[in-house]
């Protein structure tokens, strides 16, 4: 039993790491995605159960309490939140993970420093668990993990608050970036100083220094995230997701726990790639998201010749009722209006009439990658009616009517024509090449990039003004009227 239990625990951790990877792999295909999260979930249960079995742990009652509290609160909030609030929930849970990683780093460093202070000359830093000396690499990574985790914690909470609508403004003030730089440097200096002190034989490491280090990291996460606009948050959340992964991997190294190292590193790499993909799809650099003042430059007043030509719901409904092919392009406005159910109802009515309907999804429509897909899936749209940009762009010329619902930037031809535009170079859905375009939006509001859209002034475009949900509801009603 003396060697069986540790072996079993190690095997459980191995199994957990394997299940995480297989689970993520399965999540990368729509057919297997649903079982992917199940597999990963089993891995998590196995790992937690194994950890309970670890010999020599104290405070098991506290542990159980914390797990029950944390799990039930998160489970409850995750169950009842609306589908559209998913981005901020991901931010919240991600922040919690970052906080947990930071807590591990803090606890280990404090315990290690306290032990070393009490046993001068023996160790620079000792691991709390074994009282064995921590390797220098482990000490450094404990600091790095604490720092990254704390930034991710504070930053994610701000992101949550912004997306939840608790914090509408961007907090920008002069010298903000300089202040961030100062905080970063101060944290680095403090960290280096405690490390040097720790490694100097016999010197005492003030525990307060470690706490201050953590506070500086929290402050940096806060200040870094405050000036970023709410619409940029998904990229930032994805970045913090990668941060948390790295922090977990580093603290896993400190604890010599391979499952944490592997899971954290896999997420760190995956999250970094996902962040890049998101930023690239929006045709921006990550630096621009974090430090840029987006919209300020692009907002320069452009005026477009011509006028927007309105259309009545009845006419629009007739046009689509007798079309052969209709493509529906949803955008952020559909999410705001929560119009996805109505849209699918309308599409089904068209399909019942024999119209070929497809949904055309731009990769960065909405405010998260795949935002539209999730909403349409929620409404019950089968995913084989949903076409990617690359698949559907060649089909627009043979499409009779394109119905644009609350999309703006992703169909803006300026991205192709005007090199001075902030979205220049972003690939767009080329709806203007269709025979007719009907655009549903509330008025003359601009989209995320804050620029005018030449499409709305095009000869073959008609505007159907109104809130997304109401407008589509009237289309449904008018379509019924067409039949009888």
């Amino acid at each position: 039993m003396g060697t069986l239990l540790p072996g079993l625990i190690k095997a459980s951790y191995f199994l957990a790491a394997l299940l995480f990877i297989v689970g993520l792999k399965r999540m990368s295909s729509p057919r297997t995605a649903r079982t992917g999260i199940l597999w990963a979930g089993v891995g998590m249960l196995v790992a937690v159960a194994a950890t309970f079995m670890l010999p020599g742990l104290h405070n098991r009652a506290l542990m159980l309490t914390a797990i029950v509290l944390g799990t039930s609160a998160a489970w409850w909030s995750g169950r009842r939140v609306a589908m559209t609030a998913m981005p901020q929930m991901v931010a919240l849970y991600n922040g919690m993970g970052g906080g947990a990683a930071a807590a591990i780093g803090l606890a280990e460093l404090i315990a290690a420093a306290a032990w070393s202070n009490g046993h001068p000359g023996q160790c620079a830093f000792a691991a709390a668990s074994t009282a064995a000396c921590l390797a220098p690499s482990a000490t450094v990574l404990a600091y790095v993990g604490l720092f990254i985790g704390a930034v991710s914690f504070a930053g994610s909470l701000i992101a949550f608050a912004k997306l939840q609508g608790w914090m509408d403004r961007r907090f920008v003030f002069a010298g903000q970036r300089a202040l961030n730089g100062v905080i970063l440097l101060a944290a680095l200096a403090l960290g280096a100083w405690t490390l040097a002190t720790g490694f100097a034989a016999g010197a005492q490491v003030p525990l307060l220094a470690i706490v201050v280090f953590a506070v500086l990291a929290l402050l940096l996460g806060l200040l870094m995230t405050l000036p970023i606009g709410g619409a940029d948050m998904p990229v930032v959340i994805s970045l913090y997701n990668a941060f948390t992964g790295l922090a977990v991997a580093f603290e896993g190294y400190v604890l010599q726990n391979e499952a944490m190292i592997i899971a954290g590193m896999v997420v760190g790499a995956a999250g970094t790639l996902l962040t890049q993909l998101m930023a690239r799809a929006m045709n921006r650099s990550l630096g621009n998201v974090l430090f840029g003042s987006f919209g300020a430059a692009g907002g320069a007043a452009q005026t477009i010749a011509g006028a927007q030509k309105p259309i009545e719901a009845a006419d629009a409904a007739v046009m689509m009722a007798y079309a052969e092919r209709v493509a529906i392009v949803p955008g952020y406005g559909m999410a705001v209006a929560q119009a996805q159910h109505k849209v699918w109802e309308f599409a089904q009515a068209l399909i019942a009439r024999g119209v070929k309907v497809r949904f055309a999804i731009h990769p960065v429509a909405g405010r998260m990658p795949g935002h539209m897909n999730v909403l349409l899936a929620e409404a019950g749209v089968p995913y084989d009616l949903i076409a990617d940009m690359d698949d559907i762009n060649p089909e627009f010329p043979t499409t009779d009517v394109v119905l644009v619902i609350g999309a703006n930037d992703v169909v803006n031809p300026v991205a192709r024509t005007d090199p001075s535009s902030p979205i220049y170079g972003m690939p767009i859905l080329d709806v203007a090449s269709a025979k007719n375009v009907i655009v549903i939006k509330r008025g003359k509001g601009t989209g995320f990039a804050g620029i005018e859209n030449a499409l709305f002034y095009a000869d073959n475009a008609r505007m159907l003004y109104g809130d997304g949900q109401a407008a589509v509801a009237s289309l449904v009603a008018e379509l019924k009227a067409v039949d009888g």
Partner: protein
Amino acid sequence: MIDGFLALYIFMLAAFTGYEIIARVPVILHTPLMSGSNFVHGIVVIGAMVALGHAQTPLEQAIGFAGVLLGAGNAAGGYVVTERMLDMFKASKNKERG
């Protein structure tokens, strides 16, 4: 003991694995996948359990407790949210079609 170079190998291989897996994800799954990977780093909860399990002073206990609480929240919340999103990706077989 995972010594320096062994750790580097594991870091490197895990990073490649994560990168390669995500590189094949279709856009349609980006949001659930961000959430799924968010769940996976919920494994941090076991580290927090170890930290709490070794905590001696009240300060260490408080930090450890907070760590487990947050880690459990990460894992549980990440799971629920991901599962709810993925549940929506139904195949279209049992739906009427155009």
